[in-house]
């Protein structure tokens, strides 16, 4: 099934689609649309990219956006995982918090932007806050689900082997057992966080960043620059997901690979 040669070939075949799309885009923009405001051609975008890179704007935007992202996701992890554990492990806490969580959860994260600005001003914190609101629920819910579905036999086997305290059962049995679910929650959260990042910066919750300047260059009608930011946002999102998956598969969920292969 996992033929490396075949996989290699498939990858080239996939790359061909990207090249074709770029060529088509270039031809259509240069020969049909002939208006770089309506549709900037790939070559325009490349030169805009080099221009922005030379000015040093891109690097700064990247740094600021990563800080927003880190604040939001970090906070979501710090809040989401412990609360998820608490409601997944303890029926009483679940009964207490569940209605509140279910009321807050459907509010779209972007609806928090006005309060983010009022509470934290135009700072990195307020952008981080909007991202946090988006990222915290997938983490929380998946942690909860993971803890709910810990097989009873693992807990009982643990008890028979002297692991009887709640704290130890969570640490040594329930958490490792729930980890695949927690991890997929974090993965969904990174995607949501990335979307919220653009929106939060776009709406002026911050002074710079990839989303912020995407909007800024739109106002200048520099659509070639807008495309640069769009592509960068996509690529960085992709890289974040790849790095995340690599780390998880390599270090945390090694034991799961045996089940597939």
């Amino acid at each position: 099934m996992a033929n490396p040669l075949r996989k290699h070939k498939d990858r080239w075949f996939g790359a061909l689609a990207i090249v074709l799309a770029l060529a088509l885009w270039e031809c259509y923009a240069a020969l049909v649309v002939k208006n770089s405001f309506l549709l900037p051609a790939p070559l325009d975008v490349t030169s805009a990219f080099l221009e922005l890179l030379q000015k040093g704007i891109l690097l700064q935007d990247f740094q600021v956006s990563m800080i927003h992202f880190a604040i939001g996701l970090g906070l979501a992890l710090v809040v989401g995982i412990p609360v998820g554990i608490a409601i997944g492990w303890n029926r009483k806490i679940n009964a207490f918090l569940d209605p509140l969580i279910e009321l807050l959860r459907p509010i779209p994260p972007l609806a928090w932007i006005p309060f983010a600005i009022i509470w934290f001003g135009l700072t990195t914190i307020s952008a981080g806050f909007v991202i946090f609101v988006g990222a915290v629920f997938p983490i929380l819910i998946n942690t909860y689900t993971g803890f709910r579905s810990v097989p009873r036999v693992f807990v009982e086997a643990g008890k028979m082997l002297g692991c009887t305290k709640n704290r130890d059962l969570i640490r040594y049995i329930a958490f490792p057992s729930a980890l695949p679910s927690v991890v997929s929650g974090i993965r969904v959260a990174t995607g949501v966080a990335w979307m919220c990042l653009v929106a939060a910066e776009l709406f002026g919750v911050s002074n710079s960043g990839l989303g912020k300047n995407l909007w800024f260059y739109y106002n200048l009608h520099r659509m070639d620059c807008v495309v640069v930011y769009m592509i960068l946002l996509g690529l960085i999102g992709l890289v974040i997901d790849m790095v995340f998956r690599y780390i998880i598969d390599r270090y945390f969920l090694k034991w799961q690979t045996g089940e597939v292969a």
Partner: protein
Amino acid sequence: MGKLQIHDLSQSFTRDDGSELTVLDHLNIEVQDKEFVCILGSSGCGKTTLLRLIAGLDTARSGTILLDGEEMKGPSSKVGFVFQEYSLFPWRSVIDNVVFGLEMKGIGKDERYRIAERYLELVNLTQFRANYPAELSGGMRQRVAVARALALDPVLLLMDEPFGALDAQTRNMLQIELLEIWEKTKKTIIFITHSVDEAVFLSDRIIVLTPRPGCLCHIVPINLPRPRDRTSTEFAQVRRHVLDLINQKCSIQ
């Protein structure tokens, strides 16, 4: 030591409609130190309920369970348990599964791995020490589970149909292996099964439970010398005797 005394043990569950379902009814059993006892009965007769009570995983409605004269309250490191379903922690390698109990006990790293290696050797799985449970066959997983339960050196080993999910050949092999382990470690073993063949092959005594309300139906001592030959006439006679007991005495009630 590993002498188990069960006095007047009763257990019942409340059904959804509020009525009581009696599973064990004033049960009295004594198991001697180093004895191998099989508890035999059809499904639903309370075998697993009984074993869980002995293990301290559930609390009985009434009655007492004494291990070496001490009343059992909750899980204890003196009692090992091998579950019917696969209970190895999939996120831990084989050796780390065996180490688990010792780790919980707070034994130093070198020491606990040394002990675990010894028990892994006992079940002949040293070469799989670094593998994950998902990579093992069903028989191997249950052998690791036995090693894991033994690593804490309990006086009493409870086994809940541990070979129930295995094919007949693996099952026979593991029975022989279990007897060897029992000879070497001299634990008291209480082994649940619904296979008459398995019970006759393994045990010093068979305790037959009636199907609901579970009360002691019959105790059959097996005096055949070990190793036992499944195809011998003596074996067949004992087997028939036990089957008769189950069919006549127990299910007509």
